[in-house]
């Protein structure tokens, strides 16, 4: 047992760190409900006019739709190939497993810039038109390592005896997978899928290089921020935040999986 010591200094310090992490973002959320366009406290009043502006704007609406399409496609593709790879890893010998793991984790160790310019070069040389499809390719390679980490960690802690027992009782390998393995690893797969969604939802580094004429939400925000002060950015940013945070709260129970 650890002895509990009073450490008010550390407590205060950690509170400061959390404030540093969250305060700026909370401020954006607050300003999104401000009645006027100014960035000053105290507020002159609350309003949802910036949200109305966002939802009335065809630019924003089509960007939201584009981001949703890309994120859903990415989750579907990464979910399938990532799960297969995670299952494969548990069946391999230790050496092959470590080799596969390190290969699959490479995209996470590279800055998005390199994935972006690499893919752009490939698309230029193969005369592939840039579209939301090419954006999804970038998101798949970028999110695959994270999904694989979450799924394979769960599978490696999975007791192989359970599968053996099922097989001894006469279940075929597909039945074993569907009735025994899948239900046990499903939470980890869902958690992985949620992580992939939220990563794709606000990805901008790779998207910048792989996108065609259709803006995604983060790209639209990026270009608006650079243009002028525009209070609707507060509102759309808050929506972007909400999009990824809803998913992370969904992952709450899998927080242990994420850390490993």
């Amino acid at each position, binding site marked *: *047992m*650890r*002895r509990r*010591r009073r*450490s008010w200094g*550390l*407590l205060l310090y*950690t509170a400061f*760190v959390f404030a*540093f*992490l*969250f305060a*700026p*973002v909370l*401020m*954006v959320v607050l300003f999104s409900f401000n009645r006027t366009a100014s*960035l*000053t406290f105290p507020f002159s009043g609350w309003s949802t006019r910036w949200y109305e502006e966002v939802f009335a704007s065809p630019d924003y609406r089509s960007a939201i739709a584009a981001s949703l399409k890309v994120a859903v496609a990415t989750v579907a593709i990464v979910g399938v*190939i990532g799960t*297969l*790879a995670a299952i*494969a*890893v548990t069946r391999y010998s230790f050496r092959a497993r470590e080799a*596969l793991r390190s*290969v699959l984790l*490479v*995209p996470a*160790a590279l*800055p998005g*810039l*390199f994935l972006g*310019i*690499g*893919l*752009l*070069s*490939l698309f230029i040389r193969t005369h592939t038109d840039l579209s939301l499809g090419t954006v999804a*390719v970038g998101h*798949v*390679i970028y999110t*695959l390592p994270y999904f694989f980490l979450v799924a394979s960690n769960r599978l490696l802690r999975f007791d192989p005896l359970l599968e053996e027992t099922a097989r001894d009782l006469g279940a075929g390998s597909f039945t074993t997978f569907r009735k025994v393995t899948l239900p046990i690893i499903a939470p980890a797969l869902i958690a992985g899928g949620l992580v992939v969604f939220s990563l794709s939802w606000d990805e*901008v*580094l790779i998207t910048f*290089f792989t996108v065609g004429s259709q803006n995604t939400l*983060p790209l639209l*925000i*990026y270009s608006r*921020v*650079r243009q002028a*002060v525009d209070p609707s950015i*507060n509102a759309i*940013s808050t929506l*972007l*935040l909400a999009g*990824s945070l809803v998913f*992370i*709260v969904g*992952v709450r129970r899998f*927080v242990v999986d994420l*850390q490993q």
Partner: protein
Amino acid sequence: MLLLAGPALLVIGGALLIPLLLLLLQSFVVSLGYGQLRYSFTLANYSSALSDPVYRTIAVRTFAMAAATASVCLILGYPAAFFITFRLKRARNLALFLVVASLFTSYLVRLYAWYTIFGQKGVINTALKAVGLIDSPVSFLLFSKWAVLIAFVNVFLPFTILILASSMQSIPDDLLENGRDLGASAFQSFTKVVLPLTTPGLVSAFAYIFVLTSGDYITPALLGGKQGTTLATIITDQFVAFGNQPGGAAISFLMMVVFVTVYVAVAQSQRYKGR
């Protein structure tokens, strides 16, 4: 069984390996500008990247900023990770969840938040003006390296805390207990047990933050202004604005050499300690 990993390996091959090889190839051919290439072998892209004094200044600035970000993250994050791991009990998981939540808080929104804080009509300037401390807006914060550093630290701190907390959690309770039984003070058990056992976590967090910050072009472009030009923004310009892929690719691979060196050094140092 190899079949199961097949699709993932195909994706890695097609969307990572081939693009990177293509980049490498491009870095050795002649650029005619605006995306046109002439396929004859040349080292000119590398020699002009290496000999350009402007690039050299920017390279120093980029890596200095990356090293500063990584150091500040570790210094700020370590005590927080320590507190969360060793001083919190019931609230520990909640605290870790908050860190994860902030990790997934849109990176772009966080940059935008700093933009609104530092801007001409931003939170700091309007507040200072309201209190009467200044008459006209001060602009030293926005479009400066300090804005970039603060935003970078804000973006990478959650990640740092998670790595450090997980390396602290893997310290067996017995070790700390034994130390205390043998009469170690809190300070001694920190310097003799906790610090050495978390060094690998510190080193890998440093390497990872260093690599990711030096490859980021959005943060400097948004908050750094003229001083914000980094290697990553140069590469982006070469690719997007000038259509000089060979030039951009050469700089990328020079950066990659630095990154690989950093990662190999980290792996080497950990192997040494581990056995």
